[in-house]
């Protein structure tokens, strides 16, 4: 609750700061300070100090899982702002508004991570989506940006329609929007319920860009201004995933056997399309878009196998994935050639950045000692637990091997090829932040208890 209200307030504050202050630096300052405050508030709430006692009975529940995820999301956002806030200036004039929207999105994230009623889920997702449509299109002079935003908007609205239809059907079958009550209707569920559930599955798959509902992702991530791609590819996606697994755990957990097959199909499709298509990309940005699909495929495993490992693992996964991807994007933004060749000879010019980028890539590829490995490990473990589907796991693993191919192409370009990848100088602060981020990833990779400790202490 702290975070929810505060983030809304911060959004408003940023809005006015845009009008009052002209100096971008101070605007950025406020935003980062606010972000920090937000983070602190949230941690306080975890520790049990709630400032706003609002009764959200049956609508929201701020349990530890939600709060923990919020912490991850806020932390990633903080890092994201520290790394890339400056680069938003390049996008357009409405500097403060961007922050406003980001804070509103965080507000939506807070909703989706802690909803108990489908109404809140719906509102949350909309609060996330609408600002994203705008951020995607915020580079107005850039046709790609326009196109991306329009595509995103049309498809997003369409999927919203699907979602609403699903909710309506479920309401018809159960007469409630509260997930816990929905979960009670498991013996001889009516066709309405099943249909609604499937529609929700589709629309959520769309939001997390799982095949075959992923089509918007590459275009939108590619077209959107890179700063915002970074944001929506990481924190937003993670948040929606948390909502996804919450929904299907709390509302349809009792029907698991019913939808597991479809979850499996979607997982396989996502893994396949994401990884295979990424192989042939020439632009790193687009490659990362596909890789985000591939990673989504791995996260889908947690949905497929709905158990404790899966849920904990998903938390770790979101953290690992967000951190790594934010890091890579932060570096990518500074490049002015987004193709693989743009990275040629990068290590010679910027050894430190190259090293950190390598760590991020290794983490995405799931190499041990990085958080990426453990998160994938959790997914596999969850999928195998209790005689899960071995072939699915083997397939996932082979796809992970494929993913190594395109991640390592970047490493090869950076280290083993020579070239004039022109590169805007990075401030020492930027470098320091990246190093901290990399250290964080390694730390999570060696000592994940750091995270799990908070779930039950």
């Amino acid at each position: 609750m702290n975070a929810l209200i505060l983030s809304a307030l911060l959004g408003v504050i940023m809005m006015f700061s845009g009008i009052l202050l002209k100096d971008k630096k101070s605007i950025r300052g406020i935003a980062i300070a606010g972000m920090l405050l937000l983070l602190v508030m949230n941690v306080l709430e975890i520790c049990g100090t709630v400032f706003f006692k609002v009764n959200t009975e049956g609508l929201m529940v701020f349990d530890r899982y939600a709060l923990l995820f919020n912490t991850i999301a806020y932390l990633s956002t903080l890092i994201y702002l520290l790394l890339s806030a400056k680069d938003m200036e390049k996008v357009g004039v409405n500097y403060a508004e961007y922050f406003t929207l980001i804070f509103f999105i965080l507000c939506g994230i807070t909703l989706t991570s802690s909803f108990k009623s489908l109404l809140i889920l719906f509102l949350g997702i909309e609060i996330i989506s609408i600002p994203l449509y705008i951020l995607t299109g915020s580079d107005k002079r850039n046709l790609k940006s326009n196109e991306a935003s329009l595509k995103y908007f049309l498809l997003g609205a369409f999927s919203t329609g699907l979602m609403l239809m699903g909710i309506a059907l479920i309401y018809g079958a159960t007469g409630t929007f509260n997930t816990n009550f929905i979960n009670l209707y498991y013996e001889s569920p009516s066709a309405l319920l099943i249909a609604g559930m499937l529609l929700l599955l589709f629309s959520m798959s769309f939001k997390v860009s799982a095949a075959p509902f992923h089509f918007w992702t590459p275009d939108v991530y590619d077209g959107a201004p890179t700063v915002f791609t970074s944001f929506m590819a990481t924190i937003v996606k993670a948040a929606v995933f948390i909502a996804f697994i919450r929904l299907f755990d709390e509302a349809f957990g009792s029907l698991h056997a019913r939808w597991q097959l479809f979850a499996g199909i979607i997982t396989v499709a996502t893994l396949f399309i994401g990884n295979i298509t990424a192989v042939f990309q020439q632009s790193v940005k687009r490659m990362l878009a596909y890789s985000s699909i591939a990673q989504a495929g791995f996260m889908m495993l947690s949905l497929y196998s709905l158990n404790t490992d899966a849920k904990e693992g998903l938390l770790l996964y979101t953290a690992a994935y967000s951190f790594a991807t934010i890091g890579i994007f932060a570096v990518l933004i500074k490049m002015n050639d987004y193709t693989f060749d743009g990275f040629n000879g990068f290590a010679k010019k910027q050894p430190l950045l190259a090293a950190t980028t390598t760590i991020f890539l290794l983490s995405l590829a799931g190499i041990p000692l990085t958080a990426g490995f453990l998160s994938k490990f959790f997914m596999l473990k969850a999928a195998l637990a209790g005689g899960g589907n071995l072939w699915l796991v083997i397939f996932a693993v082979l796809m992970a091997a494929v993913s190594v191919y395109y991640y390592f192409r970047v490493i090869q370009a950076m280290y083993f090829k020579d070239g004039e990848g022109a590169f805007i100088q990075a401030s020492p602060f930027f470098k320091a932040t990246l190093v901290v981020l990399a250290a964080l990833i390694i730390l999570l990779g060696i000592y994940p208890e750091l995270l799990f400790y908070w779930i039950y202490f």
Partner: protein
Amino acid sequence: MQNVLQIVYLIPLLPLIGFLINGLGRKHLSKSLIGIIGSGVVLASFAISIWVFLQVKGGNTHDAHYFDFINVGSLKIPFEFKIDQLSSLFLLIITGVGFLIHVYSTAYMHEEKTEHFGRYFAYLNLFIFSMLLLVMGSNFVIMFIGWEGVGLCSYLLIGYWFKNQEYNKAANKAFIMNRIGDLAFLIAIFWIINKLGTVSYSEVFTAANLAKLNTTDVTVITLLLFVGATGKSAQIPLYTWLPDAMAGPTPVSALIHAATMVTAGIYMIARSNLLYSLAPITMDVVAYIGLATALLAATIALKQNDIKKVLAYSTVSQLGFMFLALGCGAYTAAVFHVMTHAFFKALMFLGSGSVIHAMGGEQDIRNMGGLSKKLKITFITFLIGCIAIAGIPPFSGFFSKDAILLSAFEKNPVLYGIALFTALLTAFYMFRLLFITFTGKFRGTHDQEHHLHEGPAAMTIPLIILAVLSIIGGFVGIPEVLMHGGDKLVEFLSPVIPVHGPSTVSHSTELMLMGLSTGLVVIMIIFAWFKFKNYQRTEETGFGKVLENKWYVDELYEKIILKPLNWLGSFFNNVFEKSVVDGLVNGVGRMVNYSSRQLRLLQSGQVGNYVLLMVISMVLIFVLQFFIRK
């Protein structure tokens, strides 16, 4: 109290030390010093061997255990020396002949550069060391160590002049052919381990253990051992390396490829005679192979013109005789022949060495002739050698060969007939060699002619000593008929090689056979004298050419073994490796790439298509849910 024979480790140790000194210090020591060290250590071990021999003669045999070599689970392979009649006898031969040849070498190799001189002696010492290991080992593994060791040394010494790639090829050939034999030997060892769980003679050759082995086991083991022997002792089909081995310096040929190493096979079989006695089939095989080899080699030797080649083939032939003896169960006779053969064959090789030395490296007998005037000692000693090998009483060769022929006759008169024929051939080609080389008039160049001279004392003295030995060496085994209790060797070896009853052949027959062989040999020699006393070079034709070309056996091997293997190798290397092993892996990679290129076309960029695809997949899933998996 500990047995005095515990110190026998000195015998192999001294040559090893010599090897180390000469090997490491070859740059810094003077030639004379190298020579002294090289020969000295062997002399020392010879002295110890004599002492050991006397000990053994006094009835003191001993297994000297030093440390556990390999000790896995129930399998125990100690590093242990066995000192008994057989090994002590071989010790004498190896160290004794070895010493003489070392001495000879000091003079023969004197033109070599110091470091190479040192290298040479290092190799020789190393060889002596391994050979001693071979005969002293108290179990098959130690024997195998020596076995491969001598193989290595022969490889090194054949390739001693490493600038000449032909020599190196010969060296490789020797080593690899030996390896083939060694593999069989190895498998035999595994078989024994598998059946008896031990490898040491004292345990394998106990009646209890031998009883454990059924006929097939014994037959297979013995056959495998025999294959090993054919490798080392140059029998059919693995004999072809020996003539090529003549690439090495002549003393080496004398030591390794005549006196000692090649007799390892005989030693092994004699050592495991108890096994062989249980395997009649193997015995036949051994006998026939031996005889066949003897005959084949003898025929080839008839037409060779390289002095050393002739001797090489005669060696192969003589080894064949020894195997014949083994095959006929006359192990003692074989060992006896090993000894005498060591004397006269070493003698003849050294003799040929001094000839070559005198001729300045010339080896083709067609360019020699009439050397008897210049090289008196060489001529006389060589003559003695020839008489010995031809088997004229009372020279050593007579007794040993007679024993063999007798055993052959016992087994089967046909064998005897062929063996006798071979013996006659031997006499013929040896004297052919003698006459072409030493009689008639000189056919070489002029500077060769007035450069002819007898070698220094270091070369002549060994010759003389060996000559004496080849004369008297036979008296240790005078057959019963000629002198009662004359056959000292048999009774000496009896603890190792049990004597099975008195010979079935009546004394009269035996005497008759002796007379027959001797007579025929003499005739042969006279025939050779008339044919070759003044030899003119003639081109070989017809069958003679086949013999000159060694029955084209090398070419045959080339065709049926080397070519196919090479073809297979290049097929694997160029075709299989690239197209299959790599092909599969790269193929997968290419497939991924291709499917990636196709799959991205799905991302058409058209919103309409995206929605369409989404709707279709929705419909499909609905259908799946509601109409297929009710």
